[in-house]
């Protein structure tokens, strides 16, 4: 195998030092999912399984178009189907390809306690390095989009890699390559934004006044973006978060508490040490023993006097 070590990290989980990052001269990439062009054929799901050699377990039919019914360790992308009745009473079938959004500020990476189990490359892709994963599930708590899934077999966390292995050698992700309608595009983030701009203008002309790009600034933008006909209400699309953000609870846990706790523990340890120097040991003296002996003998005398 070729030398596949990465030297283009911009973030590495649970790491206090700068990760190897000299090969950073890369464009930021993005996948653009044009929901208005999607026909829900699930070819992207198949291509993802095909390229990544994934074969999720067969499930029972759940009475919905989703198959399987949710993301799982072997299903890294999933078509979600929502029926929406608009103000005019028209039925709209809103189909969204769900999967990792590859946040610029990844909540999973922030929450991860295992050094190097989650990394972000200079091109923006957030990748799970499974050999370092300890299976704690913290990434699940960090993620604003409810994406990572822990395998019950190997206790590792899995999600879309944005085909980092393909992108690394100049190929587009498998889902992009296979999409028959061109609803999934891939390129530099700037190009994708330009392309989205044109498409949004078209949609507005066609009457979708609220058409827009989903590139949520609360997580620093994402490297997977959507063109939505109803960008004012992302939650219509099977619960796409309106304002995705890393939970304040995770922020407190991973931001505030870590240094404060460390300082507190260090303070207690140093305090104890200083006390041991200043005050010294608390020894039982011969005087204490003498007092005790006296009281014991007195008690004994009284006891024998009684009996």
């Amino acid at each position, binding site marked *: 195998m070729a030398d596949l070590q990465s030297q283009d990290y911009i973030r590495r989980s649970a790491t206090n030092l700068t990760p190897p990052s000299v090969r950073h001269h890369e464009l930021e990439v993005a996948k653009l999912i044009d929901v208005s062009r999607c026909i829900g054929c699930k070819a992207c799901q198949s291509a993802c399984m095909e390229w990544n050699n994934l074969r999720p377990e067969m499930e029972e039919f759940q009475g919905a178009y989703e198959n399987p019914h949710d993301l799982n360790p072997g299903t890294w992308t999933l078509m979600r189907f929502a029926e929406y009745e608009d103000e005019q009473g028209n039925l709209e079938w809103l189909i969204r390809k769900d999967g990792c959004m590859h946040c610029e500020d990844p909540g999973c990476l922030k929450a991860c306690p295992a050094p190097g189990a989650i990394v972000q490359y200079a091109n923006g892709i957030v990748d799970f390095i499974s050999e370092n994963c300890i299976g*704690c599930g913290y990434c699940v708590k960090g993620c604003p989009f409810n994406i990572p899934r822990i395998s019950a077999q190997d206790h590792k966390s899995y999600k879309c890699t944005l085909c980092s292995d393909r992108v690394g050698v100049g190929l587009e992700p498998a889902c992009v390559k296979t999409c028959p309608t061109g609803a999934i595009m891939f390129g530099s983030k700037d190009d994708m934004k330009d392309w989205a701009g044109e498409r949004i203008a078209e949609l507005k002309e066609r009457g979708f006044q609220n058409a827009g790009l989903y590139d949520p600034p609360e997580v620093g933008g994402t490297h997977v973006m959507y063109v939505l006909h109803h960008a004012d209400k992302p939650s219509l699309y099977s619960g796409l978060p309106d304002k995705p953000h890393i939970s304040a609870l995770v922020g407190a846990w991973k931001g505030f508490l870590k240094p404060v706790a460390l300082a507190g523990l260090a303070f*207690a340890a140093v305090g104890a040490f200083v006390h041991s120097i200043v005050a010294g040991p608390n020894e039982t003296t011969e005087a204490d023993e003498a*007092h005790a002996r006296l009281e*014991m003998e007195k008690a004994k005398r009284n006891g024998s006097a009684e009996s």
Partner: protein
Amino acid sequence: MSYPKGTIVRNSTLTLVNHWITGLCFVLLTLSGLAMFHPVFFWLSNLFGSGQWMRALHPWLGVCLIVSFLGLFIQFWRDNLWNRDDVEWAKSLDKVLDNREEEVPPVGRFNAGQKAVFWGMALIIPVLFVTGILIWEVYFGDATSIETQRVAVLIHSMAAIGAILIWITHVYAALWVKGSMRAMLHGWVTPGWAHRHHRKWFRSLVASGSPGPTPDSTAKFRD
């Protein structure tokens, strides 16, 4: 267990075994917990074989801890009930810290500091247990919402830091007050130790003629 002549039993053999099982669990939980809390401690995961092993063991150690601590709780709760002596003792904390214990009001089997450690742990360990169950990914990962788990993991880590702070105090006090380690390793103290640190307890034993650890023990004082 046999004790040297003229000594007082501070802890029964059951208490000793129970205490050190609890202590071992606590130390292992602290090491693995800190490894998962802050990257500077992640190397501690090697003590458990690997990160995966550590992640798998930590919750089981927690189950052992709460069962073991329950045993200690049953043995200790009565002697840890708060009373007026504790207020007086706490008011003289400066003298206690200065080793001028002759000037400190006498207390029973446990002083206010020990009681604070006891009730602190008695409060925090169940909190750690419940929040720990909620974030036990293998068995309960799907049992609650992610938001619930976020709350749980934050409380779990804050509670753990609180417990470790109490533990540092506990360990330091045991090293500082000479004779305490022997009391928990071998179970006995000298009469002078009991007179100096827990005079009311000492007098209750003398009055009842009990060898300890409690005045209602039926056996007569050994001379």
